[in-house]
């Protein structure tokens, strides 16, 4: 016999959420345990934010919460109630790529593209704190994000490109 389990149905304890995502106010009902990344991907269909490890080491799920980078696979959606969230889909404005997006394209900063949205969001955070980083600072600034394809060198170039150094 399996252990006795509490028979609380998740939908009986839904929580109301109100989050600004990419400039639009979104109201939704979520299970309290819903991770931010699943809320974005499953409920808002913003599938550009990826899950690479579930334990916040890889950074593929990085988004901006109130302007600061955050790993959305280890945050509950309810933690960002009332916040302003930016995902990769919200970065380009009026059809114009963000300088980091452009830098990644120009410098071949991606291959399979899976880590790329998180890497770009981490790059946005980095350039926000340090608009003119040197190579060492870029490598350190992105050390919370894994890429298995590029060996990082073209990613470094991409950030330098965005910072106007290439």
């Amino acid at each position, binding site marked *: 016999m399996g*252990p006795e*389990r509490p028979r609380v149905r998740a939908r009986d304890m839904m929580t109301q959420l109100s989050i600004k995502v990419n400039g639009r106010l979104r109201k939704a009902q979520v299970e309290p345990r819903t991770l931010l990344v699943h809320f974005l991907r499953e409920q808002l269909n913003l599938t550009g934010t990826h899950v690479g490890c579930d*334990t916040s080491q890889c950074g593929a799920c990085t988004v901006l919460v109130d302007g600061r980078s955050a790993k959305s696979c280890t945050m509950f959606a309810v933690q960002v109630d009332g916040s302003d969230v930016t995902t990769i889909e919200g970065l380009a404005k009026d059809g114009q790529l963000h300088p980091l997006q452009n830098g990644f394209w120009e410098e*071949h900063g991606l291959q399979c593209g899976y880590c790329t949205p998180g890497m770009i969001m981490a790059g946005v955070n980095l350039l926000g704190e340090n608009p003119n980083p040197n190579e060492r600072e870029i*490598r350190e600034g992105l050390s919370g994000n894994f890429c298995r394809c590029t060996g990082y060198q073209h990613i*470094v170039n991409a950030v330098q490109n965005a910072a106007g150094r290439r």
Partner: protein
Amino acid sequence: MPATPVLPKLVGQRVKRREDPRLIQGRGTYVDDLKIVGMQHMAFKRSDIAHGRIQSIDVSAAQAMEGVEAVFTGKQIAEFVAPMPIGTPFPSPDHRALATDVVRYAGEPVALVVASDRYIARDAADAIVVSYDPLPVVVDPELAMTGKPTVIHEKFANNLAVPLVPSGTGCTPDGSVRDDTAVDRAFAQAELVITQRMVNQRLVPNAMEPRGVVAHYEQGKDYLTIWSSTQNPHILRSMIAGMLGMGEHQVRAVAPEVGGGFGAKINIYGEEYVAAAVSKRLGMPVKWIEDRAEAFVATTHGRDIIGYVELAAKRDGTVLGLKMRLIADIGAYNMLLTAAIPTLTMLMASATYDIPAIRTTLTEVFTNKTPTDAYRGAGRPEATYFVERAMDMLARELNMDPADVRRKNFIKADKFPFQTQMGAVYDSGDYAKALDAALLHSKWDELKKERDAAQAQGRLVGLGLSMYVEVCGIGPSATLPTGGWEHANITVERDGRITATTGASPHGQGNETTFAQMVADQFGVAFDDVTVLHGDTAVVKQGIGTFGSRSQAVGGTALHMASTKVKKKMAAFAASLLEASEDDLVFENGTIGVKGSPAASLKFQAVAAFAYIPVPLPRGLDEPGLSADAYFEPPNNTYPFGCHISMLEIDRETGEPTLLKLVAVDDAGHLINPLIVEGQIHGGLAQGIGQAMIEEAVFNEDGQLVTGSFMDYALPRATDFPHFELHSTVTPTPVNPLGAKGVGEAGTLGSTPSIVSAAVDALSGFGVKHIDMMLRPEKLWRIIHGQAPRQSSGQGPRPGSGQGGVA
């Protein structure tokens, strides 16, 4: 006067990738981004012990959960899913997608839940209670070979998956020894013999996108569509059809965006078969997405080969003979290509050297670990590592420059094609040119002075150099169980735009860009007028896939051939309109013109339109239209090569190594897009450096993967690498008309031994001759501080292994 070209020639240019706009905006579609109405989610219950007999599985709590559609145990799955197939000719034990009676590695699936969302599926899988009768566990292959303390598969005595295959001088292709005398003679004549046991440790491939699959069986149509994160959708289609008893015409396989593969997504996995079979059985679409913890134990691992290497030489540095006894720990089961991977280590045992006598033997052993299969380089990095480390030990013993000992033994540039003692026929090569380029660009002589100056100050700085040659561009068909060709189609549409399809299904290699560059140049049209489609068996009629650095050399050539066919037919249409000879036509700048007559020219688009409404059909043509298929099967593999140089410093106080410099010279033949090639080399270097310095799959004696998360397994970060310096030489291959060899794996070959040799060089003052990877600071600290390394299972020196010896 010839017209001035307006459209740039694209082949050879650093063209920005056309894949990128969607990927940098989060608009790529990976498997987990797919949704189908009514789709259910699967989660697996996996064994948490490495070896044991299943006594009971209680699924009642899982079954009772709201939202749970179905629960299956391994036994129930076995009623409708056939045993797992393999693609190699070696004998293989019975292997089920889910264990039925005995689990043989921690992470092996034992039961499955299908539920309405992924959280419920996970909850329910966790609520399944399995009880086991534990069996003894073996993780050390050299212990497992004795049959102690357990035999993992009843019919495989002493856990031998492949008992002993000899290969090399005096051996026949069927693996029997015809004549031992040449090898014996080489060793009898030797003035010195280098002897070393080396471990090429187990690695976890870790593509950033874990595996995932969506299967959708449509009952009314009796048709199954399967989306999977795979490197080879056509092989997936064939295998799924075979396993489900369906025709290949009833199965469509799609590889959408694939977030990296590195060899681990060649294999067709139990989860894919089960998803397809469960979708068919339940009549519902199902999705399964692997989480990272599962990926660590359930996706195949790579490497894990022990080499006992003996190198016979004269005191002038001439190598007379090589013996290499290989023991491959393949884990608990044979997967699709598992047993074949270490045979590539044997095939490449001659490396870049003209070695007159070679004997290798291979034993493959079952242990209670995750199965191995291809991982970037797949067998060739192991060969390179064993031979290059031995060459380095020889140089050190003779007090020769590591470059000189290599140069002395190179296969000379005028001897290609060259058949090695292992039977490989190297297509083309100029190893001295690559070595010279590496010495020049790294400023080798200055580096040596720098090292000596640093050493004189008491700093532990070392230099390492490694050559490599690899076998890739895989074909012909005798070399692959799937057939060693690639397929392509070119269609010039009615409006003059071109649709290209390729069976080389990429996962980051940028084929949409490189292939469009080639096709645009061939037809003289704009890059944006060419679309490259891939990864969908309903769109791409046939294909093999992307692995073994083959997409350009084989897939690119197939596309080139299809283009040539269509261009020839289009020339016939144009010739009739222009009243010119086909041979005088020039395709450029979006026009088809006549050589020497600038006025006589037609828009490319006009000729395309005519080809679909040909009134009248030009004489000599049987049918309208502009479309052609091509299959390219190369007559031989390609053998790219190069030289990698490393400079490393080890902190005397902590033992921590830092890679100061890496200079790579790679020769992959002709390059289509140097920007993409650089990216491929960087990525390969990162994985090669990762293996040398920080990556290792470590199992404890209970068979638990103790490096089973990114907290414990050191996947390289941006801070782990210096700025790589890349250079190239160009030696085209004669085996395809592009002269392209393939470059995806090269970086993993030379970097690894060059770094270990640099570490040995840095610590040479402590009398060390060899250090097994990875270069764990503790290991280096113990060498510096004169403490014997701790014994650990499967690694480190052991009595009687002849480690570190020179006879």
